[in-house]
């Protein structure tokens, strides 16, 4: 496609998002076809909730999401098309997830890094819509009964925190030693 604005946008998203993934302990990002790519697989290895065999929610450390940035992404967005829940758990437990859909508000032109942050916050229960009109009302009802101190589930940030220290060695002075 010969849209330089869209192509430039995609290139910036590729650079920023891959930089974020390099600086993350919980995110692996796999760009798909295209130069620059408009499709990504995002694998989050952080705590979320899924439904186990007994029907109750249990912690689960994997979330795979497909992200597609279509050609008119800068002007209009269909969130149900931009984000696709790909597993690996067949029954995720979140008010805003019902495979293959993930419900999140994504204004047109939202940066890919912001989308990744939104997905991370959503999966770790740092971002929850508690109404009954979401994709999983049962999860919403369950969430409302939980103590807030339980959330978010994951304490690690999406982007690794770094601490920059500047240290200078202490040199001995040339003055005479005291008597």
């Amino acid at each position: 496609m010969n849209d330089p604005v869209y192509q430039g946008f995609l290139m910036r998203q590729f650079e920023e998002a891959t930089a974020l993934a390099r600086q993350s302990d919980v995110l692996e990002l796999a760009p798909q076809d295209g130069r620059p790519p408009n499709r990504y697989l995002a694998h989050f290895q952080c705590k979320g909730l899924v439904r186990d065999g007994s029907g109750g929610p249990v912690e689960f450390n994997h979330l795979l999401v497909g992200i597609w940035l279509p050609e008119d992404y800068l002007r209009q967005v269909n969130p149900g098309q931009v984000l696709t829940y790909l597993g690996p758990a067949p029954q995720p437990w979140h008010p805003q997830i019902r495979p293959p859909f993930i419900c999140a508000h994504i204004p047109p032109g939202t940066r890919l890094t912001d989308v990744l942050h939104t997905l991370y916050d959503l999966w770790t229960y740092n971002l929850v819509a508690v109404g009954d009109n979401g994709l999983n009302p049962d999860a919403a009802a369950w969430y409302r009964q939980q103590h807030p101190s339980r959330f978010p589930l994951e304490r690690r940030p999406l982007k690794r925190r770094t601490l920059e220290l500047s240290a200078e060695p202490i040199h001995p002075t040339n003055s005479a030693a005291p008597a």
Partner: protein
Amino acid sequence: MSATIHAPSQAPPARAQVGPAAAAGASPAPRPARLRDHAVMLVGAGGNIGSHLVPHLARMGLGRIVLCDPDTYGAENLTTQAIGPPAIGQPKAQVQREVVTQLDPEADAVAIGRLVQDVPRGQLRVGVLLACVDNRATRLYLNQTAFRLGVPWVDAAVEPDGLLVRVSVVKPGPSAGCLECAWSDRDYALLEQQHPCQHGSPHAARTNAPAPLGALAAALQAIECRKLLEAQAGEPAQSRQILLAASTHKLYVSHLLRRPECRFDHETWSLERLPAHQLSVAALLDRAARQTGSNSDISLRVEGRPFVRRLVCPACSHHERTLRLAAHVPGGWGPCGKCGTPLTAPGFDMSDRLAASELPPSLLAATVQQLGLHEGDVVSLSGPRGQVHYQIEA
């Protein structure tokens, strides 16, 4: 209901100027024959503005008036829209079609009871597009469509707070400003979105504007429409936004300037009408390849409608491979072959374009209709050396 629109050069034949008045023995009111060659489309035909605009259009002596509105009248509409009690419970487009028919039996009045986004784009090739809608998303779509088809459009809106009326006239051209040229990031953030947890199309909040405000907007809109169709009617407010504050009796006219940072590309397409009865996908690709000078690197695109490659059952996770053009199909994608739950199309398995090289022989031999293209659809074929745009015809 067929809603094929003729371009002005292919207008329906002129009809005898006989109406109910003549039938009753009285001299019929003369219809301005010079507008019989013209067609207009009114989107949001049954609302606060649209219902007041329809009679104005019917009195212009137009050849065809297409009325598009997906809604049905309710009792709450009686106080704000130009209808009577018999209209309650009736489809808005049909009610307004009857209004046109009664005022001008010679006009070809067509009612479309669907969202304009669900109407094949080629059917919006009219003389003027008139927007009386209540949401940004539809305005965005009409702005884009107007430019793609090279059709002028007149947008009207009202705001009861301050008794504001706004009418904008956009005529696509090389340096013309568009609706989005005036939009900021906030405007895009306020766009209505179809969330997967919502049922039906997203709606903006009702304005509950009083009927006279809608009538005022409709009158201004009708005047600008007439100017666009008939040079003698005056200079249209081309690339201008007229804002009338009825509460303070102030009038503001601002210019819509082309903004280089606008997110819209402002491209206008040259459309070639393509008879597609029994036309195979391979034949379509060959034609495009010859016209663009490309060989096998052709890709297909229908703007705004992605191609779907996989369908998934949300209940049992069963999935099926497919290759079809997405459409707003009332019946959806059909039931799951295993459990009967309606299938859904995951976004990650969609694509804007379909490369010729990835089409299996079975699909190349199929007709364009089997791919999902229907009469009125506009399909774009792109190659390394250029692109062509076809409007599919029966």
